[in-house]
């Protein structure tokens, strides 16, 4: 049962400390689910993210709901899994309500505003670092294939990774479309 408490605490951190918006929250989510609690393997997490991005709602919220389900369904069955995803979403929601209450009061207070500016000087450069960490935590043999056991998968994965980066970054292809295209390429190449 302790796992429900950990789910609540983990996803609370994601929105309570996710300064820098969705990309920073992604790094927190990956740290909690992959490094700290090992609820999912990296390939399981990316598969859940694939599903999350093709559905309505924010991708982080969706990933958290699916993580809550997957982490608890093995031990507690289907309804236990539903409870896990409810607990995870509650963990995400309450800090957001708290921040909304604070936001307007902080804006109006000039003394606090100065402190916020000083904190932002340090936090703004941190966000790209958090995103890089989020990407690096997913770059491993589970997601890309290993050079000794599956060199073909590794080669194709690196090619698809670069193609997706160029496609979305330079040619502005929508992320959902790009993921779909790479999935179809996977059908053909694997």
């Amino acid at each position, binding site marked *: 049962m302790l796992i429900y408490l950990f789910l609540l605490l983990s996803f609370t951190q994601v929105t309570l400390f996710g300064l820098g918006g969705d990309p920073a929250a992604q790094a927190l989510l990956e740290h909690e689910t992959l490094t700290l609690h090992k609820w999912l393997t990296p390939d399981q997490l990316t598969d859940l993210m694939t599903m999350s*991005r093709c559905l309505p709602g924010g991708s982080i919220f969706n990933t958290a709901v699916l993580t809550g389900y997957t982490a608890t369904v093995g031990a507690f069955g289907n309804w236990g899994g539903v409870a896990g995803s409810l607990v995870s*979403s509650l963990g995400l929601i309450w800090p957001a309500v708290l921040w909304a209450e604070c936001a307007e009061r902080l804006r109006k207070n000039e003394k606090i505003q100065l402190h916020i500016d000083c904190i932002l000087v340090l936090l703004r450069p941190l966000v790209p670092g958090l995103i890089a960490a989020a990407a690096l935590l997913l770059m491993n043999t589970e997601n890309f294939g290993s050079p000794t056991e599956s060199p073909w998968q590794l080669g194709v994965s690196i090619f698809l990774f670069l193609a997706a980066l160029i496609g979305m970054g330079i040619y502005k292809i929508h992320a959902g479309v790009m993921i779909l295209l790479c999935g179809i390429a996977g059908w053909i190449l694997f």
Partner: protein
Amino acid sequence: MPVNLFTLFMAFLKAGGLTIGNGYAIVEPLRHALVSENKWLTEENFSADLAIVQAMPGIFSLNLAICLGKRIYGRRGMAAALTGTLLPAFVILIVLATCFESVRHFPAVETFLKGARPAIVAAVLLPCLKMWRHSGIVLSTVWIPVGAALAIVLLGVSPTYIIIALTALGLLYGFLVRADS
């Protein structure tokens, strides 16, 4: 339409809950529903809230629903807006999650997912490259992103600790600046 909890819920359900796409995709449908169609908010109010939400920590779509719902109908409005935004995704996700593990190992699904994984990683990394240019990183602050990324990946340090430490440093810096002026 007059504003009550049900109409508010329905507006957020249609505009926020059924829009596919990441984060910012819900802004335009919401602006249309709340400002143009129902006139519950003025354009200025909407833009002001949007600016606040963009600077808030956490998940953009959640924060936006909470702030706008609260602005329109107080705390109960916040709950209605939040439910409207999250309910469709939640229901679909639960249904999908129950069948996902059993179809995950079908060859067609497995090869599709293998191809999609590198693209997901690319989609995660992409904002880093964009943000690097706009975040004003200079030689004196470049240690922050590089150090943080290495600590999180190699040492398994929690991003939470890094954020708390930098916030504390920023506060200290703030008190020094104020002592100066």
